[in-house]
């Protein structure tokens, strides 16, 4: 049964000259788009907030607290967590709670700074080495081998002696070898990625090698870079503890999570809280960085785009 329509509807009107353009979203770049998607990721946001809280606590709590992080009371050492000292006291009777936040300043700073330095250097180094290949790759990778081959301890001791102690030499000591892993990772990925046709396409457009590395290869390596970086952050925190062991890290009475954890290790059978709190602080930071990293990975994956 055919429905009847008003006849005038059947008047031929022909082409629609105004091509109605559909809703045009402001078109954004890959990175902006990723950021937009990251913000929609609940876990990532939660991680960011947690990080922010940790960061702010590190800045504010040592300032606001009435307890001095250096205040010793050797009559009250190794106290268990309680109302007086929330996280207990350490081997010199100092308040662990305040020290934890104080230590966080150094650790987070070191973790981030180290990660950024080795991130920038490692990705570029690996990218260049992998992309150019041939002799350049050979030389660059041999340099990496030499750097890894020379005992780290020797180098670090020499750094501490020739450059003195302080943040710059600490960062140098931290980063001297740390970037090599990332460089090799990126190189491996780039060796594989550079065979893709879109790299050929870009070459055909006349793109410079640097552009190809930065615009085509590194974005496609990002997920590995992210994982590596989220792993390096706690790595740097522990490395700082090791370096302060040989005098390059923070000097007493300042402290850091790594140093607190190292001390806590000695006491773990009897005063587990002294290990627990710094370890949890490091783990929590690492957890948030990892979740954030996963969120970032997802955000950077255009196939998951919604």
């Amino acid at each position, binding site marked *: 049964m055919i429905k009847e329509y008003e006849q005038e509807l059947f008047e031929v009107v022909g082409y629609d000259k105004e091509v109605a353009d559909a809703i045009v979203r402001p078109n954004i770049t890959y990175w902006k788009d990723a950021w937009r998607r990251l913000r929609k990721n609940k876990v990532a946001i939660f991680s960011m907030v947690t990080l922010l809280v940790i960061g702010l606590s590190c800045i504010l709590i040592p300032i606001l607290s009435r307890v001095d992080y250096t205040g010793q009371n050797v009559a009250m050492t190794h106290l268990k967590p309680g109302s007086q000292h929330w996280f207990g006291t350490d081997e010199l009777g100092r308040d662990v709670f305040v020290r934890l936040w104080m230590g966080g300043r150094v650790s987070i700073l070191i973790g981030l700074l180290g990660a950024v330095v080795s991130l920038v250097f490692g990705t570029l180094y690996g990218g260049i080495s992998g992309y150019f290949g041939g002799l350049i790759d050979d030389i660059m990778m041999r340099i990496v081998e030499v750097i890894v081959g020379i005992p780290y301890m020797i180098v670090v001791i020499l750094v501490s002696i020739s450059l003195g102690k302080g943040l710059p030499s600490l960062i140098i000591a931290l980063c001297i070898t740390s970037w090599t892993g990332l460089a090799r990772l990126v190189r491996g990925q780039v060796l594989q990625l550079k065979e893709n046709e879109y790299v050929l396409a870009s070459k055909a457009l006349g793109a410079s090698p640097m552009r190809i590395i930065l615009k085509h290869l590194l974005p496609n390596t990002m997920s590995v870079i992210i994982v590596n970086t*989220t792993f390096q952050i706690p790595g740097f925190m522990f490395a700082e503890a090791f370096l302060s062991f040989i005098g390059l890290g923070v000097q007493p009475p300042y402290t850091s999570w790594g140093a607190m954890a190292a001390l806590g290790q000695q006491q773990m059978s009897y005063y587990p809280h002294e290990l627990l709190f710094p370890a949890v602080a490091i783990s929590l930071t690492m957890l948030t960085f990892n979740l954030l990293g996963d969120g970032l990975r997802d955000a950077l994956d255009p196939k998951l785009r919604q």
Partner: protein
Amino acid sequence: MGRYILKRLGYLLVTMWIIITATFFLMNTLPGDPVQTGTKLLPEAVAQNLRVKWGFDKPVTHRYVIYLNNLLHGDFGESMKTPGLTANAIIRDKFPASARLGLQAITFGLLVGLILGIIAAFKRNTWIDYTVIFIAIAGISIPSFVLAALLQKVIGGSLLPIIGWPSTNVWLSGFEYTILPTLAASFGSIATYSRFMRTSVLEVLNNDYILTAKAKGLSKREIVQKHVLRNSLIPIITIFAPQMAGIVTGSFVIERIFCIPGLGMYYVESINGRDFPMIMATTIFFSFFFIISIVLMDILYGIIDPRVRVSGEKR
């Protein structure tokens, strides 16, 4: 391929030479007198005799020449800390324990890590994924010292011996002694591999050939085995290579806690003790393995992904 390997061997020699030279001279600029490392200082005459014995009375460059010459004859010198033992002997003696522990640990770590990583990738953003993340976080942020001690406390004692290492038939016997150290030593690898594998697999899953594989009616397992694994392996191999080399130097912490007669303790202590021949020997030993594993890594790259042309041929 043959030519490529020859080329790499040539590079190996050059790189080793640079490492040896650099380490030798850097080591000699370290502060501290190699014969005065104890808490008590020795009388000057005694110290002087020791210096003569170890050749510290000669200029560095002279010593360097002697060292290289000895090296060419396969002589790594005598360890300063353990009089009477040559570095060769120590390494020969201690290497098996480190190697066995290392091999067991990375094999276990690699297997478990890869499996966890793949599972996490397939169950992205579910509780399973988060559990794997937690394991990884624990593996990285719990120092192996703590982990080892916990293992000793919790599992050790009645069930498994908490210290010791098989001394006869070093490679095969006494498996029970190796369980706890292997577990403790592999935790870090599990963490690393699982995280890298997860992302790597996620990247691979994005590719269209996975659709093709699905369209062929392969099961998930077959897809993973035949298509995902291989394509996601490059980062894993990249991390794996230096770990292979790390076997050689052993793990300081694990060996210390479980009383394993490996090289790990030696490496750290030889630097602290300015045991120059040992420093050099372990460095050479480590670098050699490191470089070899990098060569293998590069060759593996090419095998895993035929598009990768490490041997440098032109397109």
